[in-house]
């Protein structure tokens, strides 16, 4: 079992007791173990990697490569050559859209879903310039990926299917191994956006059978500025490089260059060494808690949150009702503020926002006064907001240091907000 109150003691920012942090889907807090690992690197062996033939550089290189092995194993990849360090999920997907994109031609199709984060949409949309067609699978009324619709979007011309494992708005946990099968049956590549799953559940890239997966260190107790692109080594091998520079080359002549082996081919320039070391410490921390325990904890918490949510009048929440397929993300609205349309607004009589309607911005400002941090807005998923017919939602997201107590604080404050805004 995971005891969130004990876990929270490892997080100095939380132990002061004046912060109820419910925005871990945006970024998580950091435990002392992670900060210590980074500090220890700075104070004992800070130097550049893969270059110096002196003791501390060898030590730094060893820590950097050990971090790679450790993080690889954490997601079930046996060959560390398939673990490329990048800045974050966004960079990983841009790397893929750039390198895979160079091999695509007009008429080729990429299948995404309407629940994707902008970072798994915009990089692919770049390819429309060369005539690549993007198709979007829809969701059902509970915010699950609609398998029939997805099937109808995948076809002969599909080259890439890129989907999120867990939605950062709906919390929906997508059945990625089934989706991988669907993609592979159509001879398409399958990419998983793991930004909201790797931090929150046990997973194994081998059993999912994804070709690539992207995730961010800062969403899993690690530092910002470090993320991972996992790829099947035989596929990464065939891709052209992304950025050129030092470290990624084998040999440079005045008329060209040859590329280094994996994963260095994709790691141009001095990498984020301390970031990798910090992320490795975060992985140790999570492994110690047990990813099964992490998932169970969030499932139980969401079960509780959804029950409490049902008691608040006018509260609508999004995503699957079954906590088994709902990650630790709780997006909601109080009342429904309809999306804005200028023409129809100009021709309507008189607007009256009724007292049952609270704008997400007002909610998060109000909650902030009680020290509760939640997110309000479109959560980098504007097409999904449109699909849900809302301008924005509020979002409370939970992690290993959040307890029922935090959920209670949220709901008490929401009741108070309703009273404060009632007229």
């Amino acid at each position: 079992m995971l005891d969130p109150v004990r876990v929270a003691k490892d997080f100095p920012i939380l132990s002061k007791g004046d912060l109820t942090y419910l925005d871990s889907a945006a970024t998580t807090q950091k435990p002392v173990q992670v900060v210590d690992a980074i500090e220890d690197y700075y104070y004992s062996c800070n130097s550049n990697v893969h270059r110096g033939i002196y003791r501390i550089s060898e030590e730094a290189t060893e820590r950097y490569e050990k971090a790679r092995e450790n993080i690889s194993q954490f997601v079930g990849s046996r060959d560390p050559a398939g673990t490329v360090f990048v800045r974050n999920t966004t960079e990983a997907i841009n790397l893929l859209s750039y390198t895979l994109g160079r091999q695509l031609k007009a008429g080729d199709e990429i299948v995404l879903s309407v629940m994707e984060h902008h970072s798994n949409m915009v990089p692919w949309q770049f390819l429309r310039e060369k005539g690549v067609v993007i198709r979007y699978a829809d969701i059902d009324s509970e915010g699950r990926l609609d398998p029939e619709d997805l099937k109808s979007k995948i076809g002969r011309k599909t080259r890439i299917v890129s989907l999120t494992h867990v939605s950062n708005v709906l919390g929906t946990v997508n059945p990625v191994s089934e989706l991988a099968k669907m993609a592979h049956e159509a001879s398409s590549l399958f990419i998983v956006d793991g930004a909201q799953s790797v931090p929150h559940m046990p997973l194994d890239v081998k059993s999912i059978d994804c070709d690539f997966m992207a995730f961010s260190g800062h969403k899993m107790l690690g530092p910002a500025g470090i993320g991972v692109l996992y790829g099947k080594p035989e596929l990464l091998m065939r891709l052209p490089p992304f950025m050129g520079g030092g470290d990624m080359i084998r040999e440079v002549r005045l008329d060209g260059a040859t590329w280094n082996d994996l994963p260095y081919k994709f790691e141009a320039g001095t990498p984020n060494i301390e970031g990798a070391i910090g992320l490795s410490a975060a992985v140790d921390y999570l492994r110690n808690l047990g990813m099964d325990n992490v998932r169970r904890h969030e499932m139980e918490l969401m079960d509780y949150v959804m029950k409490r949510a049902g008691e608040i009048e006018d509260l609508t929440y999004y995503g699957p009702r079954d906590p088994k397929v709902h990650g630790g993300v709780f997006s909601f609205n109080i009342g429904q503020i309809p999306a804005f349309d200028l023409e129809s607004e100009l021709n309507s009589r008189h607007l009256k926002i009724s007292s049952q309607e609270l704008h997400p911005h007002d909610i998060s400002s109000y909650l902030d006064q009680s020290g509760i941090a939640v997110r309000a807005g479109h959560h980098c998923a504007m097409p999904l907001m449109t699909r849900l017919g809302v301008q924005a939602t509020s979002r409370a997201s939970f992690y290993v240091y959040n307890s029922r107590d935090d959920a209670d604080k949220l709901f008490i404050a929401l009741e108070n907000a309703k009273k404060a805004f009632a007229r």
Partner: protein
Amino acid sequence: MSEEEISAEIILDHYRNPHNYGKLEGSNASMTEYNPICGDTVHFQLRIAGTVIEDAKFVGRGCSVSQASASMLTDMLKGKPIEYLESLTESGFLDVLGIKVGPAREKCALLSLTAAKKAVKASR
């Protein structure tokens, strides 16, 4: 009630019952401003005769701060010379609103002022 609480009450009143909401007949200067971070939208309309703002109305959608400030601005501008709008500074307008807003919500509070100023510029 503190001064700030009174200001918050006034904001809430304007939010629930916005003044000058809807289509302005004969509008000859209008502009839509949109905050891409939160989606707040204000469409501000003016009717200008010579150097005077004869009338002002708005439509929009967003949080209480963005919509109430638009409502208050319409009241402030009616019958005033254009110069009054042009010389109204951001900090001056925030003072009139009287609520403390953090940097994240300042944009919401200033959405209508930006829209009104741009509307005048565009009409020239």
